């Protein structure tokens, strides 16, 4: 990579050298194309238009998503999910994070997507809290404390983006372990490590630390930016987390967003317990008072129902009395995780009695051009959907249009009768 410049300068000398060889040296920019031979996979449809080339990648991603939803639902149709999560995001800012194989640099890409992730995370898990930890010069450092405000995390991270030194997984895990053992038992302890380096320089036996995390029921997941590392795989296997490697930026985004929906609850913590929560009222805009979070006088915000303190944002923990403050829409938004819609079943393309269009988007389900579109069907209402709708229904909508309309028409029918 870093020899790119030198190489161009030596271009002439190189050609002379290659006379006796096969003459196969190519410029760096040509290389990817010759390797992949992407032009050979170009195809025309019946009207002479070019079809998209990369549907293989697309299909792979879809297949993977489906696989994931299948695997999460095969064990039991209704799993208990950990809705109250305490997530530590560990960002590796060692020397390797400055590498430029992601543009402009690994850490810039990481920061960008952490920002998106933090927002998405709070959107999906309104009752949860996040904290950011960075590793630099072999030392782990807590950037922000556990909290429920996306803005403060993002701001803190953006201000600290520089890399140096080695990285140490053990130090990071030790630090996180120290914090996470203090949180109440109903909360889910999770660590998400975004790892750029290819090795870890540890002060002691990391296996011991992993065991400690395992005993403390901390779920560690790692997203690597360069290659599979044995120790990371080991950590994830031991603690029940996910280990994945990003191929490129978009893949990285996909991988990090996979961690947004709540994971299944760990069996030992799955006992029902009551949590005290307050539902604060929104204060009127013109009533000025000093908030406990920023210590600024302003209007709006929420008032804690127990101690009447003012907080700016929900969800939060009241600084004065320690009550968990949420709003009812937050709770409602977490609700769908508990009642997921069934995964749709694959339909063999040879069956003829199928409807011709997708029930969701009304697009044709028949094979268009050279590629065959796969279709799926809801096991309850037996409506057919295309792949895109399948993903949309499961990941964003959380309701099956077929079942909903069925229920609706039923009620109409009964009303008529």
């Amino acid at each position, binding site marked *: 990579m870093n020899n790119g410049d030198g190489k161009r300068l030596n271009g002439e000398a190189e050609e002379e050298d290659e006379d006796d060889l096969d003459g196969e040296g190519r410029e760096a920019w040509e290389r990817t194309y010759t390797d992949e031979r992407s032009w050979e996979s170009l195809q025309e449809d019946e009207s002479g238009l070019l079809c998209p080339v990369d549907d293989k990648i697309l299909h792979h991603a879809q297949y993977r998503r489906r696989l994931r939803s299948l695997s999460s639902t095969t064990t039991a149709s209704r799993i208990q999910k950990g809705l109250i999560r305490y997530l530590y995001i560990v960002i590796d800012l060692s020397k390797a994070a400055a590498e430029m194989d992601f543009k402009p640099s690994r850490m810039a890409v990481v920061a960008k997507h952490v920002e998106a992730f933090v927002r998405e995370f709070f959107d999906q898990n309104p009752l949860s809290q996040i904290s950011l930890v960075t590793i630099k010069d072999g030392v782990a450092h807590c950037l922000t404390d556990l909290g429920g405000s996306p803005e403060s995390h993002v701001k803190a991270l953006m201000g600290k983006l520089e890399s140096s030194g080695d990285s140490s997984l053990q130090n990071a895990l030790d630090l996180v372990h120290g914090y996470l053992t203090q949180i109440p038992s109903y909360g889910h302890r999770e660590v998400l490590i975004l790892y750029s380096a290819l090795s870890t320089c540890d002060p002691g036996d990391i296996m011991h630390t992993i065991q400690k995390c395992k005993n403390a029921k901390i779920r560690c997941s790692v997203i690597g930016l360069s290659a599979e*590392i044995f120790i990371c795989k080991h950590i994830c296997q031991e603690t029940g987390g996910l280990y994945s490697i990003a191929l490129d930026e978009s893949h990285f985004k996909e991988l990090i967003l996979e961690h947004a929906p709540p994971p299944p609850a760990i069996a030992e913590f799955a006992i029902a317990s009551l949590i005290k929560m307050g539902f604060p009222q929104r204060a009127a805009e013109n009533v000025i008072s000093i908030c406990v979070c920023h210590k600024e006088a302003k209007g709006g915000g929420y008032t804690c129902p127990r101690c009447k303190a003012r907080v700016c944002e929900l969800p939060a923990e009241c600084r004065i009395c320690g009550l968990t403050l949420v709003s009812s829409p937050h709770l409602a938004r977490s609700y769908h995780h508990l009642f997921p819609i069934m995964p749709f079943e694959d339909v063999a393309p040879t069956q003829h009695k199928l409807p011709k269009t997708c029930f969701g988007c009304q697009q044709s389900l028949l094979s268009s051009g050279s590629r065959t579109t796969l279709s799926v069907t809801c096991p309850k209402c037996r409506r057919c959907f295309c792949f895109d709708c399948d993903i949309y229904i499961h990941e964003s909508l959380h309701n099956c249009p077929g079942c909903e309309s069925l229920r609706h028409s039923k009620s109409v029918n009964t009303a008529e009768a």
Partner: protein
Amino acid sequence: MKFQIEDVTVYFPYDNIYPEQYSYMVELKRALDAKGHCLLEMPTGTGKTIALLSLITSYALSKPQSPLKLLYCTRTVHEMEKTLAELKKLHDYQVQHLGPAARILAVGLSSRKNLCVNPRVVSAENRDSVDAGCRKLTASWVRALAEKNPNVPTCEFFEEYERAGSGAVLPPGVYTLQDLRAFGKLKGWCPYFLARHMVQFANVVVYSYQYLLDPKVAGIISKEMQRESVVVFDEAHNIDNVCIEALSVSVRRQTLEGATRNLSKMEQEIQRFKATDESRLRAEYNRLVEGLAQRGDLQVGDTWLANPALPDDILKEAVPGNIRRADFFVRVLRRLVQYLKGRLETDSVEKEGPVTFVASINNHAGIDQKTLKFCYDRLHSLLLTLEITDTDEFLPIQTICDFATLVGTYARGFSIIIEPFDDRMPDVRDPVLQLSCHDASLAIKPVFDRFQTVVITSGTLSPIDLYPRLLNFNPVVSRSFTMSLTRDCICPMVLTRGSDQLPVSTKFDMRSDLGVVRNYGRLLLEMVSVVPDGIVCFFVSYSYMDEIVNSWNETGILKEIMQHKLVFIETQDVVETTLALDNYRKACDCGRGAVFFSVARGKVAEGIDFDRHYGRLVIMFGVPFQYTLSKILLARLEYLRDTFQIKEGDFLTFDALRQAAQCVGRVIRSKADYGMMIFADKRYSRHDKRSKLPGWILSHLRDAHLNLSTDMAVYIAREFLRRMAQPYDKAGGGGKKTLLSQEDLQKMVEGHMNEMLY
């Protein structure tokens, strides 16, 4: 699973089978049907062993009227245990499906060191002293003495075994070495002698190459094997070298000094016997007059020397008169040792054929060829007569007699080379006299002649047509299989240029060029920063490794490498290397990452696996040609050219490339694994070199990867590692099946039948 290959029902202990395993079995079955020899190449990690075992045992089961015996030869004890463990699984499966009819007896046979259960004996440090310790307790005269005098120690396990007599048998089953020891302890029988006894009756015997190839051992152990046997040489890519070593002897100064001491000791013994028990010597003399046929009626515990020449070369004649008397024989040996000492005093390298050498012995020491030929047998007989049990002390004189017999027996295929000093260290005088065998086919010929099917198999046998010429036999089947993979999990690359675009090579005139050394260093440095966990580097020789590591150290490259990964180095010391390997593994496990510097043809390259994260990348620095100035190699090359019409260059390239393939093959041990291989030398991009790599590497070597520079290789490595880290479907999606179930196989066979019909 259970399936049909033509008329044989094959029992396979797993639910799924790889397609290449199936075709491997089909080929093997053809060879068995044809009762001929075969040569099969299949990459490591595709389950060669189990395919072999399950086909051959199933074949034997389906033809109960003609019992078939399997002799399975492995290189190391570790492999032996692995094979037996697989066989155990297979056997359980077969018994479960066929009932007691499928019961077979399978034993592993190894040296006393691995089998002895007597705590006093097995505590000795090396193999020879365990052997000697055993003989001290079990020799027939020791036991005869012990009968009279209860204070003479004997081995209780051997006594118990002897007492049980013909009742001492192993019940059917599969016995690993561990099981044998446990069984021996339980019954109080000596496992070693029990195993040696049971070898004749067992259906499957697993032992080391030497038991078949080294005529000294084969004469004792494998003499009574039936013709209807299948002999399998596993990991046999170096079989020609094993054959050659079995018939080569080297004599140093220390050997001669030791031999002189042995002779004095023997003389003393002879004097003692003359004074006390003249009749013994007399009896021996009479026996020798009648001929050497005495070996048949020796006690089982006493056989420990056998003729190094091949069975059919031993003439059924009486021992020549001039060495029948014990003291005459000792005198002859003294003259021989004296002569050899004189020859070692030379200042220049000498090379002779056996015929001229024998003639020169005859002139100077007055020992003729026939006398030489009988030296080994005569020594054997004498040592028995003198009731010598500490055989490890008599190794030097055995070596001398070994040498004499070989020189006296063979007129072709050998040469005698005397070197006053090692070429690489001309100042240190270390004379050595070598009798080196050039013809691998000599040692293996009796095996091919005696047994109906010999299977030679390995992961690297390319080019497959050279082996039949080297070993001088006609295989009925010779095939190379490739690996069916669900993804491209190996990524071989040929790196021809450094990052400054200058060519890199270990060619003699280029290897010490600073630019090349620096380019190699930069390559490794770039690689350690993109490859996780373990990296293994192979160099062409110890001296080259020392040189290059030194200069990396001076230029600071080594220090930079150490920032990314720890560095471990193989040395010639086994203990040190083992320690380095242990720590290397530890560093890979805990995520620190490590680089292992090793040498092609070294211990590590031959026997240690760097699978999974222990080896994500292997770099072969240079082409591991043999040391071409070595006199022995030159002599062998000349012989090969004259006898088998194999060109020197062809043989050298073949040998270098099989070593390189062996080295890089260390990283892939199973299909789920993945790894990269970098051949860092511009010579690899030439067709004549590259085409000699095994098919399973070549099929993954894309044209675009043939002529890379460092920066391109780094780019490819990055992409490859990312791709391989993605989850994948193990059974192979879509049309290309890589795991076959029973139904798949049936369909395949039926499809094949239909094809044949129409």
